[in-house]
């Protein structure tokens, strides 16, 4: 089981968190086309390698926060911090 660095609580087991996925920008609901809106609903990069994602610390501080995670090695860093060799 991996640990995630909660920006508030420090490192905790991943079972304390829920994964909220990669952040997506909400289109203007007044002008969005179905394609744009459904891109926002369903389409994500799902990258192999470094990705940015939102997590919710449901069994801890109950804050939503951003994280950078390497989906290959599961190395997780606070958002904004770049690992060596990351894109």
């Amino acid at each position, binding site marked *: 089981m991996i640990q995630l660095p909660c920006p508030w609580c*420090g490192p905790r087991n991943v*079972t304390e968190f829920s994964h909220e996925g990669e952040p997506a920008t909400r289109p203007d609901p007044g002008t969005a086309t179905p394609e744009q809106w459904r891109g926002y609903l369903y389409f994500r990069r799902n990258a192999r390698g470094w990705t940015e994602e939102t997590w919710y610390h449901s069994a801890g501080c109950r804050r939503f926060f951003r994280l950078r995670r390497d989906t290959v090695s599961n190395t997780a860093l606070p958002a904004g911090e770049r690992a060596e060799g990351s894109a």
Partner: protein
Amino acid sequence: MTQQPTRTTTRTEGRFRLPVQQGEVLDRGRQFEFFWNGSTVAAYRGDTIISALAAAGERIFSRSYKYHRPRGLLTASAHDPGCMVQVGDEPNVRGAHRLVTEGMRVSAQNAWPSLRFDIKAANGLAGRFLPPGFYYKTFIKPERLWPAYEKVLQRFVHAGEVFPDTPHDYYDKRYAHPDVLIAGGGPAGMTAALAAARAGARVMLVEEEHQLGGHLRWADPPAARQLSAEVTAQDGIEVLTDSVVLGRYDQNWIAVVQRGHPGVAERLIKARARAFVVAAGLLERPYVFAGNDVPGVMLSTAVRRLINLHAVRPGQRAVVLTANDEGDAAIDDLRGAGVEIAHIADARNGGDILRAHGRKDLRAVELPGGRKIEADLLVTATGWTAPTALLNMAGDVPTYSPTAARFLPGGTTDDNVFATGGIAGDGTLDELCTHADAVGRAAARAGLRANRAARAGLPTLAAEPPAPAEDEQVAIPELGVAAHPALFRGATHGMVDYSEDVSSKDIHLAVREGYDSAELAKRYTTATMGPLQGKLETINAIAMVAEATGRGIAETGTTTWRPMYTPVTLGALAGRNFEPVRYSPMQPWHTANAARPLVAGQWIRPDDYGDPAAEVRAVREAVGIIDVTPIGKLDLRGPDIPKLLNLLYVNKWSKLGIGKVRYGVMCAEDGVVFDDGVTGRLGENHYLMSTTSSGAAAVWKWVESWLQTEHPEWQVHVTPVTTGYASINVAGPKSRELVDRLTEGVDLSAEAFGYMQVRTGTIAGVPDCVLWRIGFTGELSYELHVPASYGLHVWEALVQHGADLGVRPFGVEAQRILRLEKGHFIVGQDTDGLTKAYSAALDWAVKLDKDDFVGKPELAWQSESTTGSKLVGLQPVDGAVVPAEASQIITSTGKIGGRITSSRFSPTLGRAICLGQLDASLATPGTEVAVQLPDGQRTTARVTEHLAHVDPEGKRQEITDPAPQPRSGEPGLARSAVTPVGDTGTHAGWLVSTKHSTAALRLSDRGPLTKISVRAAPDGQLANELGTRFGRTTRDAHGTLVVGSGPGEWLVLGAPSAHDTLLTDWQRRAEDGDEFASAVDLTHGRALFRLTGPDAPQLLAKVCGIDFADEFTPDGAALRSSVAKLVTDIIRDDVEQTTSYLLHCERSSGQYLFEALLDAGAEFNIELDGYPVATEH
């Protein structure tokens, strides 16, 4: 289980028992007897089952898997494939590892009619009919015979017997956070442990066998004893023997099974090791030749164990095949034990053996050239296997060394994983210990660095941990590799996998059939897939594939080692099972009144009280009360609440007046109905939102996600108060009269308190109750939200004061019928994960003229569509037929046109009524549709005009009978979340336990303490007044404890008697300041316990994954985590220098948490302590 001794042939000393040996682990002063297949056998304390049997002259301990060949000793360790036995009701016991105890009932497994005459051994004669892939080839077609095949195959499976009436053992689990965890307690593991502990690391040393020492126990017993004594004397090393590391997962998450802990069968340790050292040593590899599984053929380490540890002479006359020092040492040991050495074949000089003769016993050994030597013992010492499994789980790919004729660790990229000892290379004992010492220091350095990194920025610490001292990189010396002859198979074919009965011939055949890679041949032949998981067999199997394909071993490569390293019981994996359950404050009444429990998620609710139809009639004709505590309730404070409600609900919220309630529906961004409920406005900037019972947690998270991620600028504070209130719906034509009898300060008349309105007032003497006039049942009804500690009191008052009105409690089933009669849909029952708002008959609620709301674009597009499904009311034409829920609607062309979503017999109408999702083309009122019933029959149902089957006009709740004069009531006693045990008393209006305990470890219910949640900016004026920050606590001069419970969140804990003062004070401070702040009373919504005693951290380590060492959670630390799978606040608040914690969770799970803590504390003799009336904390 039923075996009895058939004869009593007590032998005081086994025929093969040697005099006292220097390294023996026997207690010669403690001799006793146990049972082997019904006969008594003598043993010493310290004997394994097999060593005692071997001392008594037994040679056969099991029959093999496929051919039922007799099997004896091979390794004399936990990994001995022939030594699995049944002990009492426990199957598959490793007999060469398990210590024998007095009276133990041991029997051979799966041998019928007896071990020496196994009838199924005929399979061996027919061996050519059971080639690899036999099952695949034979038992495939026809498929209809699979059940018959299963019966045949089951007879071949070897395993012990499982008894259904076996009592449940208590399995345990705990968390651990060692700086360094070492797998293997041989000389290298012990040396590394000492070095790491001396460098300041917390060390856990795990050894599979019963003693530390590894091979030194037979090679150099005094050295083993001395190292072992040093380890025992060293502070900071936790030694676990008879324990094994099962697996290594990401970031050194390590599973250890600990045996022999008092009071538990087995205990699973989940360790987060900051550094991990694998010192697993080497396993001796068997040699492949004809007859290599005949009883009497053993490995050199097996005879050394038998002679030196257990004082057993392994035979009378031996042939030895040796290729290394261990084999030579075995010859010395055998001579010392009085075994005649008939022949030595030295493989280093070209010596070899051809085959072993004998069936139940070794009779002779045939040498190349045909010479036969009579012997009852054949010892082989032909090489080693490095058990690299744990390293492989850390990403290590082993590489083959032709020089050493074994695989070596290839190295891992993880800086916190190390290998030392025999697994890493060869050397003298001194060289290995020098290496292990360096590895121990390096692991301590890595572990302590990780420890400091984990503490950096930790909010529970009063100050930042000191900057790390500049430490030197530890140079780890290289270990050499000694040359060893490459010995895998002799000139004949023999057994490769003893557990699975796979021979080298089978592997050659598999390769010829095209399964020519190690991974394919493994799966096809099942070699390495038995209980030993390849520890003895993998390398030989690879060598056979290499031999058959003509490729080299290095090129063939190894198969993947996966967790578990060794077989583990399901009990150990299951451990103590944590399943939080939730109860309402009225549960004692429900239990006492024969409520049939319904498990609804974590909640236990009354399904009915015996007669749901009568309960329905009571509500329609008089008055009923239902416990609806699980309904989600969110307290909302702040000026931007209307913006929030307008965003999350599909309908409009801008103009909701104070005292008004509105029904709202939430959809997700895809337009699918997500939750519904009513929200009322209690004050200018104060709302109470209700959600469905099952959606309470999801809605809270949903609200927080929009506030935190999309609109952090909005000023809204959300506090879940679901269990802060006991909720009671009073429904029926006489509900107003009943509620009026108990209510003060609220005019209940129809004119003053209309439908969809909310008031606050006093009920049965309890102030601060919230009354909604709403209804799910269609009757005049009031939903009473009572501070939870008084819930039972108010419920009992309603029952008592409503007796003459015919009041009757009703359960969830009656409520389901009532709401179906009224046509109210249930999210998740009448909708599913694809149902958008217009398909849930919510056209009236969706306001597309709002600028924005969640899901608006999808709903706008849905509103333009004429297809899709619709929620409709349905009535079977034959009212006596109640279609099962989920019955499908079939169109005239035989297609599925919808489904029944809700269906009941209506006691009010005397007929079946339904709701259903129908294709829009079928949804016109009056349409008749065919309903496919589960029994294959069809019935006709008619679409109704309205969703409501009863009172579609809504007249029933417009009752305007004159209200009688209100009465007052006594407030009654407040009750905490935990039912007190033993003597009780009262304190400040609370029912408390008066028990007094002086036990070292005590658990006390502190539920009565005042609990106020304060929200403000993390760094503002109010934060300053509160005097502490997130992660820490402070206590003021009056004894009030302020806890930094979250970022910008505090919990103020005070004496029960100070409740009103504290609440008023903090609400005033929140309102008066310049910043946006709020204070909410959580006294009744939370359970609170105090756990005190030096063993408290050990107890918590059994239920929580947090590191409770002082360096992580010192006095004054506050954090929230999962405790026994329940989100719990943990506050370290020592009392008179004794470690003490306050534990705090939402109220309905309080009884569960209390019992989980008592259960975990049993091994520390925990006692219940009452409420300290004199000193209030």
